[in-house]
């Protein structure tokens, strides 16, 4: 199956991004395709490379980037949501790209299922 993923929360206040990450990993392991992960609302904070969690905590920003690179998953950060939260090219983590909200509609159309992770 071809999945699109929508992540609506940042890496710390809510578990949504962790759940999405584990879902994507499991889906790929089962042989499914994840066409795109779209980060919206506070979800754009998952792409902030200045995020520095304590060393005994998981680093979700890094994990997403690695998962994206390893499995060629398109990690897209919404530009409108990103700009108002100070996520720009200069602090965008490896593996992510910034693009428009149209990319969310697009993956909704193209994927078999859009799975939303949020509060």
């Amino acid at each position, binding site marked *: 199956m071809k999945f699109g993923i*929508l992540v*609506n929360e940042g890496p710390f206040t809510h578990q949504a991004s962790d759940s999405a990450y584990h879902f994507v990993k499991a889906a790929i392991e089962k042989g499914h395709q994840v*066409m*795109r992960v779209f980060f*919206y*609302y*506070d979800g754009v904070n998952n792409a902030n490379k200045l995020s520095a969690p304590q060393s005994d905590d998981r680093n979700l920003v890094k994990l997403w980037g690695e998962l994206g690179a390893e499995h060629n998953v*398109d990690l897209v950060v919404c530009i*409108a*949501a990103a700009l108002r939260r100070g996520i720009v*090219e200069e602090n*965008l983590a490896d*593996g*992510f*790209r*910034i*693009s*428009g*909200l*149209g990319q*969310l*509609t*697009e*993956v*909704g*159309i*193209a994927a078999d299922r*859009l799975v*939303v992770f*949020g509060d």
Partner: protein
Amino acid sequence: MSEEIEFDTAGITKKFMYVNRKAPYGTIYALEVLEAVLISAAFEQHACIVFIDDGVYQIKKGQDTDAVNMKNFSKTYGIIAMEKEDADEDEDMDMVWRIIVEKESMEARGLSTDDFVVDVEVIESSELAAIMAEQEVVISG
């Protein structure tokens, strides 16, 4: 920056539903769902824009946000109504837009259709669940 990736969506029309559950201010969800709805219009998809729970306050008339220093974006819902009108009138366009308020949420807050900045369909929870089950993409906030 990684390069832009595009998917071929030509000729595909899906049923999108946008579920607004939260009050217009206090969290950013209402504003950012609205932005997503407006962008999606360019893709000529079917769309149900639904207001439930405190989400019904998003389209309430007479919002005054001066005291909380927030942008009053309630007038922007008029653009959704215009998109719906365009979709209704253009016979060449296969695009159905619906603006729906859940009856129970509206009544529990002492509101009626006269209180809203746009014309809405009022639908009971059970029927709304059936409409939701028909959708292909559901985005909530």
